[in-house]
C-alpha cells in the first residue's frame, strides 16, 4: 500500500504500492515514435541538416553506421547536465525527439527504463539505445491473466531480459517486474550480474521459490528493498530458510515485504535481521507470524512506517499469550512513525483494539484480508481520522462505510473487496454505502467497489460529490444486473461519472449496460487511458464509440460482450496509439483478426482458442490480444497462441 502523495516521509515509489496510481503508466513510451524506428533513420525535424552525434559508441540512434563528426563537447555536457533533471519518462521521450543530439544525450542519461509491455520491444534494442540505465521496470502478462483468462505458459518470461541486461548494465540497481514469470535461476543471475543491486520488486509474478529468494538475500549485499507483492507462490518440496541467508553484518534494508510468501520460516532469523537493519522502515510479514512474534519485531524496529502484521493471532496453545493491552503497548510505541498498517491475515478480532494508539496517525489501512464484521470494524474506523487509503472486505457493510464517511473526510482511495467472490453471494455493501462514501469523502480519487446491488442514483451522486475521481472501478458482481430500484441499465450512472469526473483516467464498468453507456464514455471520457468492459453493450457501436471518442485510450480489455469483427475493425486507426487491446469470449473470427494483422505491420495480433481440439467453430476466436510492437512476432509463443 502506499503512503499518500503528500506525505513528507519518503515513499518508495515502486509498482508494489498498489495504493498509488500507477505512476509508471504515465511515463509510457509509445514506440511508434520515429525516434525508435530502426529503419526510419530519416532526418529529424531539422530536415537535411543534423547536429553531430555525441558519442559514437553505443546508444544513440540506430541505423546510421559510419563515422561521426567530432562532438561538440561543451554542448554535450550542458545538455546532459540539464537532462539529468528530467526523470519522468514522458518528458524524456519528448526530449529525445527534439533532434539527434538530444536523442543521443537523453539515451546516455536515462536512468530508469519503463517497458509497459515486455513484448513491445526487444531487450537487445533497449540495451543498444540506453547506455546508463540504473533501473528497469517491466510488465508482462495482460491484466486479465490475474483472473485466469490467460492460459498457463503464455509467456512473459523474464529470462531474455535478464540475459541482456546483465552484460549491459553492471551498475544496475533496481528491477521491478509485474506479471512476469521469474525462475530461481533468473533470480540467481541478479547478484552475479549486478554487484551494486539495491531494489527488487516483484508484483503478481510467478515461477520462483524460496530457493531463489535465498540467493537474493545472500548475494545482494547492498540490498535495500525486497518487495514481494501478491506473487503466486507454489508450495515447494523443500522450503529454504531464505530469511537466514541475509548477511550477518548490519544490512541496508529499508523495505522487506513478503506477506505473499506463505511458507514457514525461521522467526529468530527474522528477528535478528530486523535488529541489524537500522534503516528498515517497511516490514510486511506473512501469516506465519503470531502476535507474540510481531511484538518482538516491533520492539526491534521502532521506526517502522509501514507494517504488515502477519496473522494477528496468538501463538496457539502458548502459555505466554499476549494480552490486548500488551499488544497495545507495542503499538503505542510505534505510533510516532507508523502510517501504514496492513496484514491481519488470520485476524483474531479481540486484538483489534490494540491498534487504537496508532489509528489517528494512520494514513493507510488495509483490512482486505481480514474477515471482520462491521461491529468489529466500526470502532477501529472511528479512530482513523486521517485515513487516506482504506482497503477492506465487504463485510464492513453499508453501516461500516457510513462510519468511514463520517470519520475519514480526507479519504483518497477506497477499495471494497468481496469476501465471497461469486455471483450469487449475498453481498454486504450496496448503493447505500456508495452514496454515503460520496457524501463524506469528497476528496476521493480512486475507488474499487464490489457489490451486488447498485443504483444509478448512487453512482450519479458519487460523480457529483467526488469530482476529483481519477479511478472509478465498480464491479456489480451479478452479470447484466440493472439498477436495483428502477430496473434500468446502469448507463446513466456511468455516463455521469465520465461526464462529471473530468480527471478520470481509469474506468471499469459492470451491470446491465447498453451501447448508450459507451456513447457517453466516448463522448466524455477524453482522458481515459484504461477501460475494462465485461458483459456489456448491445452491439459493435459500443466499441466504435470508445475508439473514436477516447483519444487517450491506451489499454482496453473486454470480455464476454456482443462485439465482433466490425467492432474490432473500428479501432484500426487507433491501435498504434494504444499499448494493447484484449478481447475474450466475444464474437471475433480469425478472418477479422487476420485483417487487422495484415493491415497493421507494427501490431502483433495473438489469437488463442480455449479448446484447441474443437473441430467445430474453427473460425471463432476465443481470446485476442493485440499490441503494438517494434520487435515483431515473438518467438517464444506456446502452441495455443496463434500469431496472425
Amino acid at each position, binding site marked *: 500500500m502506499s503512503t499518500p502523495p503528500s506525505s513528507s516521509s519518503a515513499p518508495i515509489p515502486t509498482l508494489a504500492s498498489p495504493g498509488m496510481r500507477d505512476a509508471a503508466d504515465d511515463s509510457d513510451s509509445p514506440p511508434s515514435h520515429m525516434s525508435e524506428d530502426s529503419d526510419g533513420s530519416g532526418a529529424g525535424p531539422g530536415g537535411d541538416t543534423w547536429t553531430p552525434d555525441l558519442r559514437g559508441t553505443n546508444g544513440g540512434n540506430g541505423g546510421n553506421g559510419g563515422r561521426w563528426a567530432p562532438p561538440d563537447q561543451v554542448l554535450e555536457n550542458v545538455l546532459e547536465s540539464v537532462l539529468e533533471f528530467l526523470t519522468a519518462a514522458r518528458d524524456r521521450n519528448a526530449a529525445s525527439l527534439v533532434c539527434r543530439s538530444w536523442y543521443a544525450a537523453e539515451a546516455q542519461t536515462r536512468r530508469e527504463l519503463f517497458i509497459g509491455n515486455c513484448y513491445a520491444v526487444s531487450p537487445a534494442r533497449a540495451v543498444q539505445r540506453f547506455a546508463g540505465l540504473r533501473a528497469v521496470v517491466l510488465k508482462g502478462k495482460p491484466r486479465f491473466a490475474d483472473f485466469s*483468462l490467460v492460459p498457463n505458459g503464455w509467456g512473459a518470461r523474464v529470462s531474455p531480459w535478464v540475459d541482456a541486461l546483465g552484460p549491459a548494465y553492471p551498475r544496475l540497481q533496481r528491477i521491478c517486474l509485474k506479471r512476469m514469470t521469474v525462475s530461481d535461476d533468473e533470480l540467481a543471475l541478479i547478484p552475479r550480474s549486478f554487484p551494486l543491486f539495491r531494489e527488487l520488486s516483484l508484483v503478481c509474478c510467478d515461477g520462483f521459490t524460496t530457493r531463489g529468494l535465498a540467493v537474493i538475500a545472500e548475494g545482494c549485499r547492498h540490498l535495500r528493498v525486497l518487495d514481494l507483492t501478491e506473487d503466486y507462490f507454489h508450495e515447494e518440496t523443500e522450503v529454504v530458510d531464505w530469511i537466514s541467508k541475509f548477511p550477518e553484518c548490519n544490512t541496508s534494508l529499508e523495505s522487506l515485504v513478503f506477506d505473499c510468501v506463505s511458507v514457514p520460516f525461521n522467526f529468530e532469523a527474522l528477528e535478528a535481521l530486523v535488529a541489524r537493519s537500522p534503516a528498515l522502515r517497511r516490514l510486511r510479514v506473512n501469516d506465519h507470524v503470531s502476535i507474540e512474534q510481531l511484538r518482538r519485531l516491533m520492539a526491534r524496529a521502532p521506526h517502522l512506517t509501514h507494517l504488515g502484521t502477519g496473522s494477528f493471532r496468538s501463538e496457539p496453545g502458548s502459555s505466554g499469550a499476549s494480552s490486548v493491552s500488551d499488544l497495545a503497548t507495542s503499538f503505542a510505541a510505534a505510533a510516532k512513525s507508523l502510517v501504514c498498517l496492513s496484514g491481519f491475515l488470520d485476524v483474531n478480532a479481540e486484538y483489534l483494539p490494540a491498534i487504537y494508539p496508532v489509528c489517528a496517525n494512520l494514513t493507510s489501512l488495509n483490512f482486505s484480508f481480514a474477515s471482520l464484521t462491521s461491529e468489529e470494524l466500526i470502532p477501529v474506523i472511528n479512530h482513523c481520522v486521517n485515513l487516506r487509503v482504506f482497503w477492506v472486505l465487504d463485510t464492513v457493510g453499508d453501516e461500516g462505510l457510513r462510519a468511514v464517511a463520517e470519520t475519514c473526510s480526507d479519504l483518497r482511495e477506497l477499495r471494497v473487496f468481496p469476501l465471497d467472490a461469486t455471483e450469487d453471494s449475498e453481498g454486504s455493501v450496496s448503493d447505500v454505502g456508495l452514496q454515503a462514501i460520496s457524501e463524506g469523502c469528497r476528496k476521493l480519487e480512486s475507488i474499487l467497489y464490489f457489490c451486488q446491488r447498485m443504483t444509478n442514483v448512487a453512482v450519479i451522486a458519487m460523480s457529483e460529490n467526488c469530482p476529483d475521481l481519477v479511478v472509478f472501478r465498480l464491479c456489480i458482481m451479478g452479470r447484466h444486473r440493472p439498477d436495483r430500484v428502477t430496473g434500468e*441499465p446502469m448507463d446513466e450512472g456511468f455516463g455521469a461519472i465520465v461526464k462529471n469526473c473530468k480527471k478520470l483516467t481509469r474506468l471499469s464498468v459492470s451491470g446491465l449496460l447498453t451501447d448508450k453507456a459507451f456513447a457517453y464514455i466516448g463522448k466524455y471520457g477524453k482522458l481515459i487511458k484504461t477501460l475494462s468492459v465485461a458483459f456489456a453493450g448491445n452491439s459493435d457501436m459500443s466499441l466504435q464509440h470508445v475508439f473514436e471518442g477516447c483519444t487517450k485510450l491506451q489499454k482496453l480489455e473486454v470480455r464476454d460482450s456482443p462485439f465482433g469483427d466490425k467492432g474490432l475493425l473500428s479501432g484500426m486507426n487507433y491501435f498504434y496509439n494504444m499499448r494493447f487491446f484484449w478481447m475474450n469470449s466475444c464474437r471475433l473470427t480469425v478472418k477479422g483478426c487476420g485483417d487487422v494483422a495484415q493491415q497493421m505491420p507494427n501490431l502483433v495480433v495473438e489469437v488463442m482458442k480455449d479448446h484447441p481440439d474443437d473441430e467445430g467453430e474453427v473460425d471463432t476466436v476465443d481470446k485476442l490480444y493485440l499490441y503494438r510492437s517494434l520487435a515483431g512476432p515473438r518467438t517464444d509463443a506456446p502452441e495455443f497462441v496463434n500469431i496472425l
Partner: protein
Amino acid sequence: MAATAMDYAHVDVENLKATELRLGLPGAEETDKMPTSRAGSKRAHAGDHHEEELKAAPPAAKAQVVGWPPVRSYRKSCFQQQSSSKSKATAPAEVQKQEEVAVSVVAAAPPAAAGSGGSLFVKVSMDGAPYLRKIDLKMYKGYRELREALEAMFLGFSGDAASVNPSDFAVTYEDKDGDLMLVGDVPFEMFMSTCKRMRIMKGSEARGLGSSKE
C-alpha cells in the same frame, strides 16, 4: 443487511434481449421489464453466446464463469482456505482406523499444505528440546508410523527411552485455523492436509489429554 429477492429485479429473458443485436434503439423495450424472479439461480442463458464459451464446466445449477467476478486468485484462495477450514470444523470426526488410508480429503482443496506430490514437511517442536525438527508427513502411512518416528526422533531428549512414559506426552498440531489440536482425531489424510506444524507437549499440560496410542 439481508437483501430481499425483490432487490435484484433481474430476469434471464431480459438479459438475453439486452445483449441481442437488433436494429431497434437500445432501451426501447425497458418498460416491460419489472421481473418477479428470485435471486439465486439465474444461470441458464440457453441461447446466450457467452455461455458456450465458458471454460469452467458447470457442475450443477450454478455455472460460475471463469475469472468473474474479477478478484485475483491470490485473494480468492485466502478466503476459500478460511471458509473451508471452518466448515471442516463442524464436520463429524471419523474414528481413525490404523492402517487405512483410503479416506478422501474433504471439502475445498486446501491451498498450501497438500504437497504437489512431492513431500510435506512440517516443523515439529517438543517442549524443552533445544531445537526443532522437520518431518515429511507423506512418508507415513498412518498415525502409528508417525508416532513411532516422533518417538525415535525426540525421546532421546528425555534421557533413557525406557524411563519415558508415553502418557506424559501429547502430540498436538496447529491446524489452518491456528487452533491447537490433538493428533489422531481425524483421518490421517485430513490431518495431513490441515496440519501446519506439530508440537509435542509434555508434563502437566499433557497429562490427562489421553495417550493417543491406539
